[in-house]
């Protein structure tokens, strides 16, 4: 494990005390309160500049809280946990292209070259385009504090920097035939020693339904904790889909294609009975070999009960109306 000098770490209290306006998930805080008076799902979406409440999303939180400053403290508080320390976020990682051991990835990815980088976006689009990292950074970057729930039953609360995937897709203009979005991670055996391991078919691929990809909560992250994305966390650009298990949030993306057929993700191909296309966080649908009812809180210790859609139900449940989530796991 790479030992990080303490000077490299943003102390959480310093980070949280910034009086900086943060755009993003603010509305999630108020969502449980808003839900009572709103039937319009979009109203609870995290619109930019929407003030964040300090209400907790917990079962007992019903009263709308006063709108405190939309700062990171509020966003983290409503996720009921503190931000996961940077050291944990950057050193406890599933990134099989480097290693199967979560605490070895950071060391092995240290010299990963993320520049120059090309992200090709194509398939069923009017306007196929290749984005360099500088092009991606031209999209207005926001901070989003999301809980990341791993299928291995642990979670972190991570302050990402990035922008909604929908904005990138809008630029390439999907055609009416496009129904799904296909994502692909870099395949570079020279830099990624884990690719020698036959546990998955490489390159790593993932997919979303177009409406999931267009959802405002779905972001392409280019940073975390206000810094550029560490290589081990999927630099220079990765997906973050907070209501799905972490393996959907594909890292170090080099290709995005709009397609008509549902893509087969790497995990679906490896074990179709255990990993489905949707992979929405769901405490009531256990993994065939372990329960998903609760999760270990990384960094803070202890456990919490897992929430349906990882707590983002107000924003995303409508995407799955009429679908049996036990069958579409």
């Amino acid at each position: 494990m790479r030992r990080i000098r303490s000077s490299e770490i943003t102390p959480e209290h310093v980070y949280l005390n910034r009086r900086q306006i943060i755009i993003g998930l603010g509305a999630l805080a108020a969502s449980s309160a808003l839900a009572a008076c709103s039937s319009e799902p979009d109203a609870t979406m995290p619109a930019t500049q929407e003030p964040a409440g300090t209400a907790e999303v917990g079962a007992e939180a019903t009263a709308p809280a006063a709108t405190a400053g939309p700062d990171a403290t509020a966003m983290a508080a409503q996720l009921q946990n503190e931000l996961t320390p940077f050291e944990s976020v950057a050193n406890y990682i599933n990134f099989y292209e480097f290693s199967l051991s979560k605490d070895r990835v950071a060391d092995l990815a240290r010299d990963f070259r993320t520049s120059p980088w090309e992200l090709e976006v194509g398939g069923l689009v009017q306007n196929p385009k290749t984005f360099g990292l500088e092009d991606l950074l031209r999209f207005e970057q926001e901070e989003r504090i999301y809980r990341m729930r791993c299928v291995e039953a642990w979670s972190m609360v991570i302050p990402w920097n990035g922008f909604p995937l929908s904005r990138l897709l809008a630029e390439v203009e999907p055609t009416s035939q496009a129904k799904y979005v296909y994502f692909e991670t870099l395949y570079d055996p020279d830099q990624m020693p884990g690719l020698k391991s036959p546990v998955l078919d490489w390159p790593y691929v993932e997919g979303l339904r177009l409406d999931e990809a267009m959802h405002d909560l779905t972001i392409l992250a280019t940073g975390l904790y206000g810094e550029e994305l560490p290589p081990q966390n999927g630099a220079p650009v990765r997906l973050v889909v907070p209501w799905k298990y972490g393996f959907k949030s594909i890292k170090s993306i080099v290709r995005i294609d709009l397609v008509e057929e549902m893509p087969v993700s790497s995990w679906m191909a490896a074990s179709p009975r255990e990993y489905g296309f949707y992979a929405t966080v769901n405490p009531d649908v256990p993994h065939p070999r372990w329960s998903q009812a609760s999760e270990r809180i990384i960094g803070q210790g202890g456990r919490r009960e897992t929430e349906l859609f990882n707590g983002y139900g107000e924003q995303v449940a409508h995407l799955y109306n009429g679908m049996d989530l036990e069958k579409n796991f």
Partner: protein
Amino acid sequence: MRSRRVRWLKAVTHIGGLLPLAVLIWLYWQNRLGPVPIAAVIRRTGRYGLAFLILSLVPTVVRTVTGYSELLSVRRWLGLYAFLYAALHFLAFAGLDYGFSFGLIAQAIGEGRREIAGGVALLILGVLAVTSIRSLMVRLGKTWKRLHRGAYLAAALVVLHYLWNYKELRAWPILSGIALLLLLAARLPPIADRLRRLRGARP
């Protein structure tokens, strides 16, 4: 001569049995178990338990193959260390990870074959540990022998527990499964007889 060698064997067994625990406690105390110490404690105690369980099956096979029987004097301790680490592994799971929240633990066991395999293995090892007391061993006689073949069942369950712990197939659980199968095969009467004949002993 024999008693001196046996004393050495016992000393090595106890050092080997307690050193990993001492190192683990020290690393925990020094906060040097990586970003998620709970995960490291669970992983390490589990691996040590399985290692001692497999080692505890070795003395009998060594006697069959080579005729050397002194390792049998530490078999009991190897088994007890397997139980010790299995019990610590369970305590780390139930206490450190689940904070003794019985509802969540019950749900984890009810919904996870991984937990069921591990739990049954722990129960078997507990029974074997209790019945390893010498007076009980004498009193149980033939039954003791049959009962303690349960170590193979426990080891098989632990290998499954280990295999099922990962999202994908991993090398170590598979290798420990192969080691267990080889040790079990050497105990099967037709194979054991042939092994004894190979070294010139009468079956």
